[in-house]
């Protein structure tokens, strides 16, 4: 396969930026979670790209990726449960309105 390693890294950098943009600029809590998932995936893709090109024989990066995916799944489950709980409290999923901790 003759795809430059850099192309893959560019791709994942792009995806990371898109995810960051979504997480920072959207008001909706669920979209913020979506942005976080996109960033997670970009990072895992990076890991697998390096594994493929440099350390193919060792499953270390693979292990990391699997663990990262499981953590992401757990994170999104808890995050969405939080969104649902917050929605019950505020009747909104708008992150700008969750201001009761401001003091």
């Amino acid at each position, binding site marked *: 396969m003759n795809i430059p390693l850099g192309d893959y890294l560019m791709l994942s950098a792009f995806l990371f930026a898109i995810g960051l943009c979504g997480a920072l600029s959207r008001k909706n809590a669920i979209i913020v979670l979506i942005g976080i*998932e996109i960033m997670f995936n970009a990072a895992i893709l990076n890991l697998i790209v390096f594994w493929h090109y440099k350390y193919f024989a060792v499953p270390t990066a*693979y292990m990391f990726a699997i663990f990262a995916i499981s953590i992401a799944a757990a994170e999104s489950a808890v995050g969405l*449960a939080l969104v649902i709980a917050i929605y019950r409290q505020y009747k909104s999923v708008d992150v700008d309105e969750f201001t009761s901790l401001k003091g």
Partner: protein
Amino acid sequence: METIFWILSAITVLGALFAIMLRNLVHCVLSLILFFLGIAGHYFLLRADFLGAVQILIYVGAVAVLMLFAIMLTRHVTGDEGPREVLGGKWWAGMGTAIIIAGLLWAIIRKDQLAQILPAGGAQTSMVEIGKAMVTDWVVPFEAMAVLLTAALIGAVVIALEEVIRRR
């Protein structure tokens, strides 16, 4: 191979862009699924078959479905944002940060020898190897993961069920 790579990349980037830019929340999640599938395709292309299957199984089958469920439970079911502005007041901050980070990463990647073509790896890491690694070298992280997942499961249930318990 390159064609597949570019097609998959286009799918992935477009999926990610639509996922954060569309007005309708359900559409957002659906294009997020497209993004996940694109990433899974990349994994298959990178000969990480197991990871690709796991990606589809966990992200498409569980995380995205969970998000759809959360949308159903929290908003008007059509998922429309309504007349309010989609982006927050400080959208330029997010956009700016993203552009700066993308630029920095681009500079780093172009600078180094990372841009050159590297030879691909040899034989495929087999499932058996992964399984063995998981219960020998990686047994502590594996167990920690098990504990984390259990804790997350219980935590999610407790957080989401709070209201019901109080009502009783």
